[in-house]
């Protein structure tokens, strides 16, 4: 028969301490098929055909693409389930059967550009890098040769309805049934943070990993701002957030659940959720054991007598929280000639230090001077134990700086590096050159020590939000933090002047040529004064008469 496929959808709602609310949708399709074999897959059911064709045509092993609007405020909101940098980010692991990875990468970005209606065609060799350590595959497979990995970000990319619509089309139920009916663009983009992503990777079917299946996860994270007009002060509901309520689960889904994070308030003292539910679930996520109220949409009883579900969360009080790892980045200096990039990494663990991998991909027109790199923690020099630096080549590739830094407990580590701004050719500037040029986010990857023991059994039945990053050991969990992108101004030439400049410079060269030509080809002679006009005419007449001239 045809290969088995399975679709699950879930929504996690987490009230944040600042009063904002974080909603994370995940839609997962598992399909037990093999795109890589010769037999062409032609019968697509739950798995979108466009992505299936992309996987088989470009021999993709893993694909992660995200479109984000806004910046995740770690200090106020805690850690996201799925971090993403502002703009577009794309990283892909290719199969090791691919011979021309760069060519395949270029074609892939163009095809994805069409699928998601985004300008991913701006991804080329000048903003693509091959990280050696920071982006290991998140699915199964034993290819670790980073020649098959490509990573690129477009920090300038804007996300809008035009990108949401094709993303929704990839879902089995579209936006007609299930959780996806909540994805209305006029509310989703009226938020502090919006990120939609697609992750494709091969996973094990079961614990013994005899068969593998392809997992497609479509995730959408959104943070609604407390102070956005129209939102209640300390009260949230599905209708307020999404301007819709739920009436049914997606018929094609095997599981459709909503989780509300009530860890901070197990007794119901800080907020209350209505309609109440007796289903509770616990999960290990981001180093913490959290408790959730569960609403199962496949059960008719969830919708009650009115046949619609409008969850309501009402607050009673507030508190503060501190994430363990968080980072900031900014540009220092003045003028358009030089500058300095400062990256600050905060380790808020009271007594444990842990290493982090910092990846910086800086465009070639900001010339980094690696001999000015300094890493200081608590005022003292903190030498990184591993530095991988690939200098940029003008108009070919960007700088790649990866280093392993040990963050001491309860400290701030500052990484600074000086750069020089280049003057570009006038055609290389964007139409709005004084807006500045974007530098993509730095990526900080780390195994953060966990307070509770993590669950290393990855194929056990787990909610989707806690099973994204593979967990290899119990005492720590994997975390990835993205810093802010930078906006840097470059000196600009005058764009109205190309013809004038060519004329003027050629004039100066011609002045040089002319003077030297005159001096080289002419010789000094005594000047005979030429007679006046009348005398000349008289001489001509005299010549004609045969009389000697005046």
């Amino acid at each position, binding site marked *: 028969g045809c290969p088995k496929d399975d679709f699950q959808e879930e929504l996690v709602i987490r009230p944040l301490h600042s009063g904002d609310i974080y909603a994370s949708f995940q839609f997962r399709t598992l399909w037990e098929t093999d795109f890589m074999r010769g037999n062409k897959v032609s019968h697509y059911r739950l798995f979108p055909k466009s992505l299936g064709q992309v996987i088989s045509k470009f021999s993709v092993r893993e694909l992660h693409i995200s479109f984000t609007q806004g910046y995740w405020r770690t200090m106020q909101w805690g850690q996201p389930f799925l971090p993403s940098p502002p703009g577009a980010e794309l990283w892909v692991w290719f199969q090791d059967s691919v011979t021309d990875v760069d060519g395949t990468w270029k074609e892939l970005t163009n095809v994805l550009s069409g699928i998601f209606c985004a300008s991913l065609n701006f991804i080329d060799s000048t903003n693509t890098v091959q990280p050696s350590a920071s982006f290991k595959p998140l699915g199964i497979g034993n290819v670790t040769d980073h020649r098959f990995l490509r990573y690129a970000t477009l920090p300038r990319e804007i996300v809008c309805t035009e990108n949401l619509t094709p993303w929704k089309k990839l879902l089995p139920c579209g936006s007609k049934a299930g959780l996806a009916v909540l994805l209305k663009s006029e509310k989703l983009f009226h938020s502090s943070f919006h990120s939609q992503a697609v992750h494709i990777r091969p996973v094990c079917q079961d614990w013994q990993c005899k068969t593998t299946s392809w997992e497609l996860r479509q995730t959408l994270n959104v943070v609604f701002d407390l102070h956005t007009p129209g939102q209640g002060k300390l009260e949230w509901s599905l209708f307020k957030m999404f301007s819709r309520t739920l009436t049914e689960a997606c018929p094609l889904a095997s599981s459709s659940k909503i989780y509300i994070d009530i860890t901070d308030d197990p007794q119901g003292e800080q907020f209350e959720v209505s309609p109440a539910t007796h289903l509770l679930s616990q999960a290990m996520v981001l180093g913490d054991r959290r408790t959730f109220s569960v609403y199962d949409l496949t059960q008719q009883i969830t919708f009650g007598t009115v046949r619609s579900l409008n969850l309501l969360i009402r607050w009673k009080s507030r508190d503060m929280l501190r994430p363990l790892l968080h980072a900031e980045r900014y540009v220092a200096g003045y003028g358009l000639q030089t500058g300095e990039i400062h990256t600050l990494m905060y380790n808020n663990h009271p007594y444990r230090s842990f290493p982090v991998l910092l990846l910086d991909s800086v465009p070639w027109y900001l010339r980094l001077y690696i001999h000015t790199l300094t890493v200081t923690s608590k005022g003292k020099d903190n030498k990184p134990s591993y530095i991988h630096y690939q200098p940029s080549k003008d108009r070919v590739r960007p700088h790649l700086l990866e280093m392993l830094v040990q963050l001491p407990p309860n400290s701030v580590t500052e990484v600074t590096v000086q750069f020089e701004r280049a003057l570009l050719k006038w055609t290389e500037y964007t139409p709005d050159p004084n807006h500045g040029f974007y530098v993509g986010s730095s990526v900080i990857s780390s195994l953060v020590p966990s307070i509770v023991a993590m669950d290393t059994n990855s194929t056990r039945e787990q909610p989707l939000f806690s099973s994204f990053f593979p967990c290899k050991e119990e005492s720590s969990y994997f975390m990835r933090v993205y810093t802010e992108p930078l906006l840097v101004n470059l000196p600009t030439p005058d764009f109205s002047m190309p013809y004038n400049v060519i004329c003027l410079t050629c004039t*100066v060269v011609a002045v040089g040529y002319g003077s*030297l030509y005159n001096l080289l080809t002419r010789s000094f002679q005594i000047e005979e004064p030429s007679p006046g006009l009348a005398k000349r005419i008289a001489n001509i007449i005299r010549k004609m008469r045969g009389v000697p001239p005046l």
Partner: protein
Amino acid sequence: MAAPLTLLLLVAVTVRAALYRSSLADLISERVEVVSPLTAWKRVVEGLALLDLGVSPYSGDVFHETPLIIYLFHFLVDYAEITFMLADVITAVALYLSVKDYNKQVFRKQKYALEADRYPLDCLELIRSPKEMQYIPLKVAMFYLLNPFTILSCVAKSTCGLNNAVIALFVLSTIKGNSRTHSSPAEGNSIYPLTLCAAALLYLLQRQYIPVNLRRFSFWWFVAQYAFMYLGSLFVIVGLSFFLLGSWDFLPSVYGFILSVPDLTPNIGLFWYFFAEMFEHFRLFFLCVFQINVFFYTVPLSIKLKEHPVFLIFMQLAVISIFKSYPTVGDIALYMAFLPVWSHLHRFLRNIFLVSCVLLACSALFPVLWHLWIYAGSANSNFYYAITLLFNVAQILLVSDYFYAFLRREHHLSHGLYLKRKDGSEATLVLK
């Protein structure tokens, strides 16, 4: 003669040492008029740091010096200031000795010509006396060492100072006629000094009394010997550069960079803004035109000045400094050091006041307009570009003025100083 020279060297070294210790040193080493992507000290340090990290300095686009500089500064990076001061001192002493020797030869030739009665009678006031020529070598050394451009270049630790030292040693070995120490000056950060070999060849021919006659065998035999030796030394230097890092990466990074001008950092030359505003379709064409422009004056100048090879060296150095792809003030200082040698031409110079005013004004305006563009944001790149144009026009006028004066003096020496027209009235000379 040794005492005034030593005093001059001491003064020069003191001035430089004082500036090194002051806060101006950091400021000066950032100035784009003084350092270029080819000669900046920051990039040398960056190249050495990359080598320490295990990455080839030529894998990126930040380091454009030849491997010989890596050889040199691998050991001397802590004594960099002393190295650059020493380079300036070597340049000054080399120029001093070569001008002294040249003056002796000029005077000897003049003596023979006077005895052979080759000069017309009324141009005796153009004849030079040993007394007036006595202080010229010291003036040359002073013009080089105390020139503000040279001091700025030295304090910024620009490797232009090292290039100047190599070229000055080349000139010295040419004038001394010592073919054994004669070596290719192209190992510096520049391929343009290749054009100096024609001038050196002509000088050596003159010294060996071989006439420049294309039909004679002795001429071609000498040319072949010279070419063999020159190319041999060039290959030795390129080979040495290869063996440092074991790869030919340095060739596109150094010479390819000079020829293809990918880096458009502003400087005092003509290339940067021209290629920043160039239509992409014509870029290669104009690149070739501008690069050929530097080289193609060699043959016409050599033909016209074949009797005066030292003036030819001066002209070539000037043409290179004005039209090269990444000029700095250090290059200008080198050819300006030769100006005292032609001080006897002052009566025939026409534009010297205008040129010196323009050069002074432009030198003052460069930092002002740079600040207005980059830091204050109230001017734009056109202001700085305009001053660049003016500065280069002034230099071209200076060089062509000296050329005019030189040719005119030669004309007078063969035709007489006070020329009369056919009717006996005073004549004027024009170029026709």
